[in-house]
């Protein structure tokens, strides 16, 4: 889908969140000269074409009691990356699974996963069992628990 100038205006209006009112789409549309039906149609098209991955409540794990949040990075041989990425991506408690570039010599890890949990011990147990998957044999990894949160908000595109 090719985004129009008006789509970008719409994105700018909704990226910070929909208003909490009876007719949120009408309210958003009124600010940029679209009617309710047009707003719903354009958002629907953005969802169908994959520009928008999901629409809904964006929760903050930390405030929900999920305070043990680990980024686990794996050093996966390039020819095994797809198999490993797909295997890990299917694990229910992994919320993100991305390939990113190695930056040698400091950073040999090329697969990034996020695991959220309420207790550190349980997260470590989950990671330990993931590392026992047949696809993971011989793959080294590192666990980086999160500490202080200095900033968190949705991306803003200007």
């Amino acid at each position, binding site marked *: 889908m090719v985004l129009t100038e008006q789509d970008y205006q719409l*994105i700018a209006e*909704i*990226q910070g*969140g*929909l208003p*909490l*009112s*009876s*007719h*949120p789409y*009408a309210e958003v549309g009124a600010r940029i000269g679209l009617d*309710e039906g047009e707003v*719903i149609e354009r*958002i*629907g098209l*953005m*969802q169908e074409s*994959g*520009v*928008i*991955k*999901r*629409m*809904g*409540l*964006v*929760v903050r794990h930390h*405030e*929900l009691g*999920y305070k043990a949040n680990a980024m686990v990075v794996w050093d996966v041989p390039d020819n095994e990356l797809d198999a490993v*990425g797909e295997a890990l991506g299917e694990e*229910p*408690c*992994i*919320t993100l*699974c*991305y*390939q*990113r*570039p190695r*930056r040698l010599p400091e*950073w040999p890890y090329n697969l*990034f996963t996020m695991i*959220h*949990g309420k207790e550190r011990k349980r997260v470590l147990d989950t990671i330990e069992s993931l590392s026992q998957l047949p696809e993971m044999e011989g793959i080294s990894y*590192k666990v*980086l*628990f*999160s*500490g*202080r*949160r*200095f*900033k*968190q908000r*949705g*991306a*803003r*595109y*200007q």
Partner: protein
Amino acid sequence: MNDLEKRLLNEYQKGFPLTPSPYADIATKLGTSEALVLQILSRLQELGVISRIGPVFKPKRVGVSTLVAMAVPEEQLEAVAEQINNYTEVNHNYEREDRYNLWFVVTASDKTHLQTVLAEMEHQTGYNLLNLPLEKQFHIDLGFPLWC
């Protein structure tokens, strides 16, 4: 949290209704009133449990972004984190337990602007950064199951 709040959080991280009165439609599904749904959502936003109700964009479709890591001496960490936070292009910024202890996401409208911001950050803080853009996504973000 009560059952209604839990159901809202579990069932509406995706599939938020694209209908004229979405909150009323959610209320009907959950067997309650629109007023109560709005009241709960507003409270959860105030508490910070919900950061917003809206779209999550697919990376790389609108603008460009990258994950950045920095190794900062512990006693400098807060000051550097603050310098990084001052960039409007930064939307997440966390401490992590590693030599690379500062992790943040930088988002910009195009590549050139992104590179400019990264170079400026290195110059301003005096620390090198690891630029780790997304290359491939293996898991679609459908929200977070609260039973993990």
